[in-house]
């Protein structure tokens, strides 16, 4: 059990698990858009670090997939908020996510070779698991706009694939 990613994702975890969405703490659509977008940016940044640091072909290919997919989803998200005339709204969850991700990336940056590969991929497994959990239990049920909800559902499907892919890569590293 790797503790680090769990700590890094404590906020999403808490949000998703400790607070089953009630009317009071339900994030608004502009906040949901911001959280989802931030989560994508974080994974792209981690992936770019992996592409620059890793010498493992499978790890690099996985990271390239993450950049391609998360950028595609975020492009769709930007198009949608523009169309809906919604301004993504920064919020405590987004801030905590970014902060935790910066800490995690700083730790990853200090590692090299096989230990970097393992830490990066393990973090990807945990990260996608947590993001998927938050999408399922909080973000999707809280979204009120149907198109936003549909995009989050598409994202969930894609990120579930990423989680499986990351688990597969993690298994090859052992």
């Amino acid at each position, binding site marked *: 059990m790797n503790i680090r990613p769990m700590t890094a994702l404590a906020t999403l975890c808490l949000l998703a698990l400790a607070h089953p969405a009630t009317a009071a703490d339900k994030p608004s659509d502009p906040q949901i858009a911001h959280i989802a977008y931030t989560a994508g940016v974080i994974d792209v940044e981690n992936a770019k670090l992996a592409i620059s640091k890793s010498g493992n072909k499978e790890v690099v290919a996985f990271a390239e*997939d993450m950049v*391609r*997919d998360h950028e*595609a*989803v975020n492009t*769709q998200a930007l198009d949608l908020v523009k169309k809906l005339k919604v301004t993504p709204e920064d919020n405590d969850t987004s801030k905590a996510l970014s902060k935790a991700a910066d800490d995690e990336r700083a730790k990853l940056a200090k590692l090299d070779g096989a230990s970097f590969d393992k830490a990066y991929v393990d973090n990807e497994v945990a990260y996608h698991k947590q993001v998927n959990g938050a999408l399922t239990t909080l973000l999707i049920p809280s979204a009120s706009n149907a198109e936003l909800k549909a995009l989050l559902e*598409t994202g969930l*499907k*894609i990120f*579930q*694939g990423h989680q*499986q*892919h990351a688990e*597969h890569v993690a298994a090859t590293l052992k």
Partner: protein
Amino acid sequence: MRSVLYLIAIAGLVLGNCVADAEARTIRVTIEKMAFVPAEIEARVGDTIEWVNKDILVHTVTVKGGWEVLIPAKGTASLAMPEAGQVDYYCRFHPNMKGRLSVAAP
């Protein structure tokens, strides 16, 4: 007059080709929500498989050690089946997406 005859001749050629190829079918596989639907296809040599990608992501149809077709997001790609046999394919970007083509001799 002469050009009209040419046109008719060309039309005849085109029609002739169509008739000759009438047996070859186009079989559509839809890619939606990170899956090939249907995942298994039966075809004959000469049939064309058309992959219609409804996802917002680029996918590939990749045969390990063989050919690969790239299907752009919201795009389409097709490939005529050159030879008989069974091939398993997957998406190189999303390896848990899998499909199978069973191609019979013509």
